[in-house]
């Protein structure tokens, strides 16, 4: 039970920690005041509690596709918010707007990623004999996530100090492309969208279920056996984000009369 708790927590919580690290390192560092983090944590927790209460009836909506459709809507909403924040950031727009948008995006992302884990907790905390194991598992999982987050934050900050700091957006866009591409698997699961057979399998190199697989999945949305549609969406979103940022960056610099980086 201890190992299972850690595995589940890493699967569900690691992407949240990766997102927090990106936001703190260079997207909206101002959003990380104690007061703001406390408010986001409390609001997310209340939203997750609400979702757990209504998740069972929701799962029966739309002929059993309710949960997937809710997750897809929330992922798209979260993606759009982070895209907007990135563009506002490049425009050097009002920080308060960015912080508010980041708060909403974070809360939505936390709800999507952690509701399954809270259902698991809800199941296991009914059995008093498992409480200690689950508690230790949660502590270990959070510890691993925080340790990774600290190293990743340090790497991003070091990168920011170099002359290639503009390229910092590349891992951020890979993360966003991975985030939005997951909607295809959710839609295929309930037959709203059809995926073709996987184009290749890199299971022999990095299994999706391995530690590296989970880490890459959290960082860039890695899939060991991607379908053609997944790759197309991933590439379009990634290239679209690069292009959109480059254009925005160009116009901002032109407007300000600054030299291009």
């Amino acid at each position: 039970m201890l190992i299972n708790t850690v595995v589940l927590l890493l699967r569900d919580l690691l992407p949240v920690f990766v997102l927090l690290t990106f936001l703190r390192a260079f997207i909206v560092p101002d959003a990380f005041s104690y007061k703001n983090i406390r408010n986001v944590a409390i609001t997310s927790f209340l939203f997750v509690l609400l979702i757990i209460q209504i998740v069972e009836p929701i799962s029966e909506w739309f002929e059993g596709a309710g949960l997937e459709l809710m997750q897809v809507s929330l992922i798209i909403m979260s993606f759009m918010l982070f895209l907007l924040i990135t563009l506002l950031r490049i425009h050097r727009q009002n920080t308060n707007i960015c912080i508010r948008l980041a708060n909403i995006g974070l809360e939505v992302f936390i709800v999507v990623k952690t509701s399954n884990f809270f259902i698991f907790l809800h199941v296991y905390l009914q059995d008093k004999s498992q409480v200690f194991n689950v508690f230790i598992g949660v502590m270990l999982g959070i510890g691993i996530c925080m340790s990774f987050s600290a190293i990743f934050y340090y790497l991003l900050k070091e990168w920011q100090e170099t002359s290639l700091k503009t390229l910092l957006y590349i891992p951020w866009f890979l993360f966003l492309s991975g985030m939005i591409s997951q909607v295809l698997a959710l839609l295929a699961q309930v037959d709203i969208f059809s995926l073709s057979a996987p184009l290749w399998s890199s299971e022999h190199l990095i299994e999706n279920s391995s530690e590296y697989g989970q880490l890459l999945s959290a960082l860039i949305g890695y899939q060991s056996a991607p379908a053609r549609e997944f790759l197309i969406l991933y590439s379009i979103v990634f290239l679209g984000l690069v292009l959109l940022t480059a254009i925005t960056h160009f116009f901002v610099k032109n407007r300000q009369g600054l030299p291009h980086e």
Partner: protein
Amino acid sequence: MWSNLLNKILTQLLLVSFLILSTEIEAADNTYYLVIENHVFKPSVIEIPPNKKVKLVIHNKDKLPEEFDSFDLNREKVIFAGKKSTIYIGPLPAGEYYFIGEYHPVSAQGKVLIKELKNAD
């Protein structure tokens, strides 16, 4: 002469009925059923044909929710206590694709075996 004609008509009718029936069996064959009971998947091995999308109906007969989880199939779905849920899997190439009940991974284990079925098509 009449008996010959009757025989021919009956044979044709039988043939047509068989064709209709086989089409229905094939459509029904695209749906597979899985039961979770005492935190165990029954059956633990499901055989499905390669490169075909199939419907998997999972019935959780236990009093606790279970999460059908498979990295291999890229599927993850919570099935609430006493409820049925449907997921679609495939098309996938031949191979073994493992799944577990994430809330009881020691007992709830199974695999989807994708291979050419003897009686398929």
